């Protein structure tokens, strides 16, 4: 590495009040692909913005950023002279494909603009070149795409357009800020391949910002790990994945690995990461096994628990041996096993109707969308779904956006009326017009929602939120409060939380509150709608472990909806794969994952980035 392409020294970013990014240094060699990984609030996006000179006005950057071939520190340059570099020598792809393009301008013009600006192509030539670029990023019909407006393209297509814009002038450095986070798994895989291919072909240096370790392994050679405004570790992908030095890196790696579990069958968290055997270990043997390569478990675990991102005292529940919560969980796990054995006869085939707690037959849902006064067209969200969940079963429902999984959930919980078909929960047939039936059904079936920020009413206290389902059952206030106290402790928050309001909690804590609310009626069935998709990796592991503990402790039947195959595999015994309103495949989780029968399942499994697949 003689002359680095990008040389960052002692970069700091601060508001008027405090420093958000602490002195930070790194290099990127020409053509090198570097990943910058970190959780939300780590400062990784700010770092990339500072390099591009795109920090918001309220923030100031210190230190130095040098680009080879340019004189001096880029941070000292004027907006005008920085602008001359942006789009030509360095360019950027952002996270949100929906809002990053000008809605009023044709796509082709937006691509051509970047060439006209830097006079690398002019007039019709720029327009022609734009179509070529759109073809290179593999848009299906580049000529039509050039004429389209952004809203006429899908998220994945827009991200390809962004990439075409970024690559138009063959920059030396490409910065990608979470470019695939908002995309479906299969689309993500295609876009990642495209970035990889284009960057390699052009010899472009890459700074790839993401929270997802598996994604970084797919496109990068070297990784920087960032937390709380500091780079705590850097090294080649292999070094970081096989021999992480910093405890945060180890924790992140352990928490990201959904195939590895501790001796209680729970995911590793940052607190228990010391016992994590590493990604090199084979997934099947690591389950339950504790071939501690890290060693010296106890002191490390204790030290690490303080640095978790949910740093408020109530946040972390280390699932370490000896803690009462785990003791209970372990004890009840034995109980569940016996239940499972009792129902084992039904495990053999899907014919044992008596044991099925949920039975969905021939479910169809059609939405009528109005277009004008007299015209309307129908959208089939569900095209005939058959699904059975046995008592005590853990059913995972996997699908990408538009697969109909959300519609299935709202029908299951009686929030919408099916067009055809039947849903039975216990011995109640779900019918949104039958109030009494719904009341009884909802005592048995409760939901944990996806978005921890939207699922709690900001104007209600936590006690009122948790007690709300009991309110409709006419429970007196004292009983509601007693149950809320019981459950807030069950989900690992302290009692003081009850008098506080949702905005005083972190995302993971809110999700715990949401779970407490769902369990307050003592339901038999817990439906979880993408409950961890909005959470950081380290928090995700904690919430998943909590869910697993509670399912065991309360002998719940679980219906778990997710776009994330890894999460479902870890948590569920059975899985149904959905696409465009249909279940394309269902069966025991291991069977479906290891030997998928349907091509879509195969594609989905192949597209899902895993830590093991990194090498």
């Amino acid at each position, binding site marked *: 590495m003689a002359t680095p392409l990008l040389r960052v020294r002692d970069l700091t970013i601060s508001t008027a009040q405090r420093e958000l990014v602490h002195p930070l240094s790194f290099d990127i060699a020409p053509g090198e692909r570097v990943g910058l990984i970190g959780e939300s609030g780590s400062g990784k996006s700010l770092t990339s913005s500072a390099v*591009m000179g*795109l920090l918001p006005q309220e923030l100031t950057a210190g230190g130095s950023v040098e680009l080879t071939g340019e004189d001096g520190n880029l941070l000292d340059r004027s*907006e*005008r002279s920085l*602008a*001359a*570099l*942006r*789009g*030509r020598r360095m*360019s*950027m792809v*952002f996270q*949100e494909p929906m*809002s*990053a*393009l*000008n*809605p*009023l*301008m044709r796509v082709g013009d937006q691509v051509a*603009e*970047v060439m006209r*600006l*830097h006079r690398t192509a002019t007039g019709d030539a720029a327009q022609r070149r734009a179509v070529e670029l759109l073809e290179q990023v593999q848009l299906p019909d580049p000529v039509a795409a050039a004429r389209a*407006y952004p*809203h*006429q393209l899908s998220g994945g297509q827009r991200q390809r357009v*962004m990439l075409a*814009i*970024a690559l138009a002038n063959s920059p030396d450095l490409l910065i990608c800020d979470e470019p695939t986070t908002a995309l479906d798994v299969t689309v993500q895989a295609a876009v990642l391949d495209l970035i990889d291919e284009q960057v390699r072909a052009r010899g472009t240096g890459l700074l790839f910002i993401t929270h997802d370790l598996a994604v970084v392994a797919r496109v990068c050679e070297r990784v920087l790990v960032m937390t709380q405004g500091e780079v705590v570790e850097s090294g080649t992908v292999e070094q970081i994945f096989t021999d992480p030095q910093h405890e945060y890196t180890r924790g992140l790696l352990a928490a990201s690995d959904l195939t590895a579990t501790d001796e209680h069958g729970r995911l590793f968290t940052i607190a228990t990461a010391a016992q994590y055997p590493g990604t090199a270990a084979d997934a099947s043997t690591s389950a339950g096994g504790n071939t501690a390569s890290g060693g010296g478990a106890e002191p490390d675990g204790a030290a690490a628990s303080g640095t978790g991102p949910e740093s408020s005292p109530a946040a972390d529940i280390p699932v370490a041996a000896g803690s009462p919560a785990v003791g209970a969980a372990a004890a009840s796990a034995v109980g569940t096993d016996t239940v499972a054995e009792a129902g084992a006869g039904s495990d053999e085939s899907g014919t044992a109707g008596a044991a099925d707690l949920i039975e969905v037959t021939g479910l169809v849902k059609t939405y009528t969308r109005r*277009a*004008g*006064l007299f*015209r309307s067209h129908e959208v089939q969200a569900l095209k005939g779904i058959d699904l059975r969940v046995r008592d005590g079963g853990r059913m995972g429902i996997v699908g990408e956006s538009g697969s109909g999984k959300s519609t299935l959930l709202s029908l299951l919980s009686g929030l919408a009326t099916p067009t055809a078909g039947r849903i039975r929960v216990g011995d109640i047939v779900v019918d949104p017009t039958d109030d009494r039936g719904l009341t009884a059904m909802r005592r048995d079936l409760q939901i944990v929602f996806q978005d921890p920020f939207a699922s709690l009413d900001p104007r209600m206290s936590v006690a009122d939120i948790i007690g709300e389902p009991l309110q409709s059952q006419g429970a007196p206030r004292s009983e509601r409060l007693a149950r809320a106290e019981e459950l807030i402790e069950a989900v690992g928050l302290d009692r003081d939380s009850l008098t506080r309001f949702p905005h005083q909690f972190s995302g993971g804590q809110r999700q715990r509150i949401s779970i407490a609310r769902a369990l307050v009626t003592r339901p038999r069935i817990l439906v979880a709608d993408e409950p961890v998709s909005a959470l950081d990796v380290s928090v995700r592991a904690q919430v998943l472990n909590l869910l697993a503990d509670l399912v065991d402790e309360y002998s719940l039947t679980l219906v778990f909806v997710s776009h994330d195959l890894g999460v479902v595999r870890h948590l569920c015994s059975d899985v149904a794969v959905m696409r465009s309103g249909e279940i394309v495949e269902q069966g025991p989780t291991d069977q479906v994952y290891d030997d998928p029968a349907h091509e879509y399942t195969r594609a989905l499994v192949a597209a899902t980035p895993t830590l093991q697949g990194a090498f």
Partner: protein
Amino acid sequence: MRALAFRLLQFVLTVWAATIAVFGLMQILPGNAARVAAGMSATAEDVARIEQQFGLDRPLVVQYADWLGGMLRGDFGTSYVTGAPITPLVANSIQVTLILVVSAMVLALVIAIPLGTAAALLRGRALGTILSGLSQVGVAVPNFLAGILLVMVFSLGLGWFPSSGWQAPIFGFGGFLSHLVLPVCALALVQAAILTRYVRSAVLEVMREDYLRTARAKGRTSGSALVVHGLRNAAIPVVTVAGVQLATLLIGAVVIEQVFVLPGMGSELVRAVANRDLLTVQAIVMVLVFLVLTLNLIIDLLYSLLDPRVRNAA
């Protein structure tokens, strides 16, 4: 195209509903029109005579159909009070009002767009704060007060412009303009203050958009990103507001015409109300409502012209 047809149909239906509303409102007090027109000292026979003369003794539905049919032919009927046809009166006064409103709106936009953009760009600095403070004060001044103040300074004080009256352009364009300046300014200044605030917030909103950051990442300076990508996006909410404000301006003109003694629809409306000439009131109100609805329609169409998302929606 289908969306356009749908919008036009909606417009026609709304106008029709408005005719019923206006007609119905005037009939809330039964027999009111004739009794009012006949005057305080009228006997029962006088009232009956007027009722018969103007067909007010017929069923309401017939009266309504008659009125609606007349309007479709461009005939608003004959005043019960003055006995004169209403149509020429509306036709003459509408010109004055429209000239007033349209020039005020153009002037207001010419002032508000640069000022609002500047206020947004200078947010947090002294000049930006002064600009938004001024616009905040301007919004609080009723236009008739602005008119009175302008008369005090530029007419009674400096003697630059006449304080009242109207001169049609055919009798001399200079006189036409000098009579127009103060009333137009009175309407426009207040309007400009309102629009400045909307322009400012629209520009601020756009400045937060991701695509402006994209434009900068492509190599535009923040200024040129705003001009090339921001302003057209900011225009969308401003156009919507300007449409609503045109309606406000139209009603504001009613008062301003009183201040400057201009022979517009407002003066005619106030005179008709004072004379309790209900059929004339009905006609002028209907014309004003029709203008408001037409303005809304034009704004909607303009909106879909500006925004491809709306254009392609149907």
